[in-house]
């Protein structure tokens, strides 16, 4: 509780200094976007981003701006970012598909296994924080029903409370796991998008290493290892190699 207080206290002066609050900036950006002034809209959105806040809509709109400005790699990065906040948003998925159409390398991300997808969409159905609050609620109910089970005199009531407490025990554990998973998912940058027009993928994390293959702007890569300023990346078709971190925008 104290932490919340502190964070609010910390944020307060920040908001005082920044000229406008996110909502006004968001509305301003919309007006600019409507008059096809995508640069101005993008500036406003970036201003919001600087205030250390985020939302699915913010990332989605930034993606749209970049798309309109023909910066496809950036738009892919932001659409992907928005999809991390709302995994199943069809608009973002649709726009991302458009962005992929403009990329040169034909490596549209593969569909994951059904079970993985299902599991992912389950824990991504709400935010990590919501899952945390849910855990807390479930834990309360579990405790209450456990106590009831312990002090109940009648056999039938004891049975009922026992099942109840067992159920809520499981729910507590699962939602805690989900909360953690969602947090992990939102904070791990396991993917990246190629920013430079053309990059050579190296066999080792040095500038002098052999060039293995070439990637073009907008291609999605999976990051499997980090070594100082180098990333070890893998493509959907199992090809892998090292690339300088400055050429990749992390998602």
């Amino acid at each position, binding site marked *: 509780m104290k932490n919340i207080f502190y964070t609010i206290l910390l944020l307060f002066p920040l908001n005082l200094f920044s000229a406008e609050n996110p909502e006004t900036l968001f509305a301003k950006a919309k007006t600019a976007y409507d008059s096809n002034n995508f640069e101005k809209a993008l500036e406003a959105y970036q201003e919001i981003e600087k205030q*250390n806040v985020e939302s699915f809509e913010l990332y989605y709109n930034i993606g749209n701006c970049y798309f309109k400005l023909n910066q496809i790699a950036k738009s892919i990065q932001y659409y992907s970012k928005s999809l991390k906040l709302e995994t199943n948003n069809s608009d973002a998925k649709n726009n991302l598909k458009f962005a992929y159409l403009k990329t040169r390398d034909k490596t549209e991300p593969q569909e994951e296994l059904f079970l993985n997808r299902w599991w992912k969409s389950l824990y991504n159905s709400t935010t990590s924080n919501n899952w945390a609050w849910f855990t807390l609620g479930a834990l309360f109910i579990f405790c209450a029903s456990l106590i009831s089970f312990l002090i109940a005199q009648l056999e039938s009531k004891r049975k009922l409370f026992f099942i109840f407490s067992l159920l809520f025990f499981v729910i507590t554990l699962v939602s805690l796991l989900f909360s953690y998973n969602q947090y992990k998912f939102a904070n791990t940058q396991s993917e990246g998008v190629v920013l430079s027009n053309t990059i050579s993928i190296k066999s080792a994390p040095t500038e002098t290493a052999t060039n293995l293959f070439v990637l073009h702007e907008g291609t999605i890569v999976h990051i499997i290892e980090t070594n100082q300023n180098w990333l070890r990346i893998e493509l959907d078709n199992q090809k892998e190699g090292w690339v300088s971190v400055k050429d990749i925008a992390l998602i």
Partner: protein
Amino acid sequence: MKTKFLNKILFYCFAFFAPLVTLAQEASFTASASKTKAEVGDQIQISFTLNTSGSGFKAPNLNDFAVVSGPNQSTSMQFINGSMSQTISLSYIIIPQKEGKFTIGSAFINAGGKVLQTKPFAIEVAKGSGKNTQQNSNQGAANSNAQVADMDNNLFLKASVNKNKVYLGEQVIVTYKVYTRVDIVENGLDKAPVFNGFWSEDIMSPNQQAELYPEIVDGVKFQVAEIKKTILIPQRTGTLQVESMDLNCVARVRRQARSNDIFEQFFGGGHQDVRVTIKSKPIKIEVMPLPEAGKPIDFNGAVGEFSIASKINKNKFKTNDGANLIYTISGKGNLKLIEDIKPNFPSEVESYDPKISDKINASAGGLSGSRTYDYLIIPRVAGKYEIPEQTFSYFDPSKKTYVTLRAPNFELDVEQGSEKQENYVVNSASKEEIKDLGNDIKYIKTESKFSEKDNYIITKFWFYLLLLLPIVASVAFLQYYKKFQKENSNISEVKSRKANKVALQQLAAAQQHLTNNQFDALYTELYKAITMYLANKFIIPVSELNKENIASKLSSNKINENIINRVLQLLDKSEMARFSPIKETMAMEIDFKEATSIITEIEEGRKV
């Protein structure tokens, strides 16, 4: 006699030497021109004449003129009174190119061992009038020379069409014929005709060798050659003009005899090559639009006379199995210009653009032949389909009506093939993607709720404290509850410990009643003593004190069955004694002892 003889000798001598005398005669080599005053563009003939035989002719410089023809050599021999004279003439036809005074220099020739030369002469050239020039350049050769003066009548080009009034799209055949009465040494196309507003196809090109045949025009016999024949199909309505065609010919003309001398007539004069440009007259063709009345919807511009045939190579299919559907349109008319027929294929059947093959001949009768549309169709989904009948309409210019032909419909029976339909699904998906390209990305979101970045409860310490809270609370509660229960149980222990005491007091009171022989009072006291004891001992609320409860409570406290029975019997007896009229005073002491022994035994059992 002597003189006669001398004369004779002289005669013979003369006769003998006559040719020599002739040779000895002064040889003359002269130059002449048809005119010495000319206009620019006029044709001038210049001739160099030698009255004896000669060789090694050297022409003067004619650079200031364009040489149209020459040197044309002609030789003539004359015998006059037994003496022969020979004349060699070399002529040029020249055209002055610019105005001024030009000198034709000397020409040289070797004759009789001597080199002879002509006298130079001047030609004065005035500025020409354009009209004259044009005419002259075309027909000059004929004009300048009397012999070729009526060339126009002897050599001409005529264009003719088989129809002057046609419908749009109807074919017309234009023929170019050369009529000639002179020999044509060579000919070449100068200007090909331009067919503006027509689609054209040559039946015969001008390069091919033309056959000559005689034809009589206005009573004069001409040799005629068809040099070009072209099929024209008008592409727009109105009056269209077939432009002229120009042909360059070199005609070999006989030089007309200059005198009535038999000898010359007999041998015939020399001949002369004349270059002539002949032109055909432009032809006007009136093109009528096709009638609007009765025009079929599917009319695709076909004009002529056609028939349609169709065939399919199979009717029974498996899915993803291809078949060829072939439509053939054959007949006479503008086959090459008709729009493609478009069959309506069911949507479940994939079709590709047709392979079109033509077998079309251009002949004197016009364009005729056939055009074949070969459609590859691939049914993708099992079922029964129908390719509807295909109509084809054309305009028949001879009947002046539209005609609609029908090719029969086809039934397709498609069975599920062995392959899965994956192919089709993939195909349709890619098709959809292509369609997507025409769309745009979705619009931006207009409202948003922002949340603080990197604010995860799960990473906060207080969250775990919060999680511990219910656990701690419930442990605390349970602890408290246990204590409470314990205290509660202590109270009942005190009670049961007291039970013996209370029972003993009651029993003491009962003993007093026994000694006083108070029957009712004794049993009342005994009943009370037993029940109160049990109520205290086993914590049974007074309201629940009945025999059933007591029995169950005792058995649940693991009291001997025997004792339970004795308790119940005693309780029965006490109740009976209290309400029965018969007082069995004898049993009073036994029952009192029984009550005491039961209580003692229960106490002892408890202790054990």
